[in-house]
């Protein structure tokens, strides 16, 4: 199992190296608290692929159509982070066991690490960067995470928030026990679970 969060499965294209330590830190430090765009990278230029192990795929990410050529091995997580500079989505286990990479695909929460980007033709993807309704307004669950102090290191927070959005949409917020069960796919090593449940509860009431 790859445990190096900086090591993508697929060789990043020439844009990947531009994801700086600074933007990585900024995204981590702010957690889900703000709209964190990566560097202004445009991944729309086709990248040469030597044989049939690469494909072109066109999808909508945070409302913006993107057409990219990817190695077929590229996960949605690596597409976002390494190719498009959207580093808000985090790589924890890269094996579907931690939930740090949770994003919405066609409105449903999924693990970005186990989703092959090549399969997403026509899909609509929402990441933490696309959640807030505007520059000066946070999504209610982002605000709730701040209000409830629902994170410490912040690394799992984007995944927690995207998963929480899914949990609320699915209607599994009837009790604290129900929220805990339906948020169990997101691990927090700082142990902020009590406050994460508080935040999901708070945001669920807003709706």
């Amino acid at each position, binding site marked *: 199992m790859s445990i190096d969060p900086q090591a993508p499965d697929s060789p990043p294209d020439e844009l990947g190296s531009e994801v700086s330590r600074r933007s990585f830190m900024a995204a981590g430090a702010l957690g889900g608290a703000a709209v964190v765009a990566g560097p202004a990278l445009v991944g729309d230029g086709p990248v040469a692929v030597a044989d049939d192990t690469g494909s072109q795929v066109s999808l909508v990410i945070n409302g913006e159509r993107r057409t990219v050529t990817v190695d077929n*091995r590229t996960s949605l997580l690596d597409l976002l982070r390494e190719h498009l500079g959207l580093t808000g989505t985090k790589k924890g286990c890269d094996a579907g066991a931690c939930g740090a990479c949770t994003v919405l695909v066609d409105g449903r929460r999924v*693990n970005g690490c186990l989703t092959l980007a090549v*399969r997403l033709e026509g899909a609509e993807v929402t990441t933490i960067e696309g959640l807030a309704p505007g520059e000066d307004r946070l999504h209610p669950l982002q605000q709730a995470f701040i209000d409830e102090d629902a994170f410490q290191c912040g690394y799992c927070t984007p995944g927690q928030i995207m998963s929480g959005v899914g*949990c609320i949409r699915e209607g599994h917020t009837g009790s604290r026990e129900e929220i805990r069960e339906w948020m169990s*796919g997101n691990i927090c090593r700082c142990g902020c679970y009590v406050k994460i449940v508080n935040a999901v509860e708070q945001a669920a009431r807003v709706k």
Partner: protein
Amino acid sequence: MEPFSYTKVADTPAALAAGQRGGRYIAGGTTLVDLMRETVERPTTLVDIAGLPLRDITTTPGGGLRLGALVRMADAAADPKVRSAFPVISEALELSASAQLRNMATLGGNIMQRTRCTYFRDVTANCNKRNPGSGCAALEGINRSHAILGASDSCVATHPSDAAVAFTALDATVRLLGPAGEREVPFRDFLLQPGATPDREHAIQPGELITAVEIPPHPRPLRSGYLKVRDRQSYEFALTSAAVALNIQGGVIRTARVAAGGVGTVPWRLPAVEERLVGRRPSDDLWAQAASVAADGARPLEHNAFKVELVKRTVERQLRIVGGTK
């Protein structure tokens, strides 16, 4: 991960043609992509079947259910027909994995999922399932999570699916489509015990496609449910589990279907438990007496002997939950 070519098919003939050429089907991908990343799986061609029209859940004559192979676990669990007729299926699904994974994984993929044995997933370890003839590192290794029933000298890995335990209890059948047409395989014959060939896990032929899982009609009223015991409360595989379905009329158990998970190399049907239930009246004594034979034939390994007692208690508790005490 090894490089692979990718093709998406629009209909089942195209899928079967690609499968016959050696393509590997991918549906939810939650097991396959994970194992490809570990290079446990190294397909050269992926055939994306997510677009095939196999997403329906329909009621069959007599009150059975036909569950399309590409129904997502989350959708199957939430379906009102499934929840009302066979709660044991909904409960098994909702106690599996995480909400994210259940949004991705399909029923066909769920029953095809491969073992969580750490030696199978570690390409540097000996494993007869991954590399036939190399030996079984689990036999003398850390085997706390491994099977006490249905194992062989070649393999002691458990089957990880919860839904498959419910399907086994309910006498489900798997519908398969191949070049020669469609056929049905009883669930108990679909998943194979390891014997000397643990690399053969299913009765599926190369290029065949699972189209549906069918649950036959059961006598009504049917009470059913699933209990899962694990190291943490959620998002974990079973140490032991029990699927129970009872038809009780006039205070007497008319039919009983019981299967255990986490203990066998395949989901483990418990006919000896069922025999002790049929024709009897529910009582705490009956549940204990019937469950006392749940581990008959068990051959525990160095670290998993606790499962012998645990599976009996799991079955007993679930019999009481489903059957009551009156």
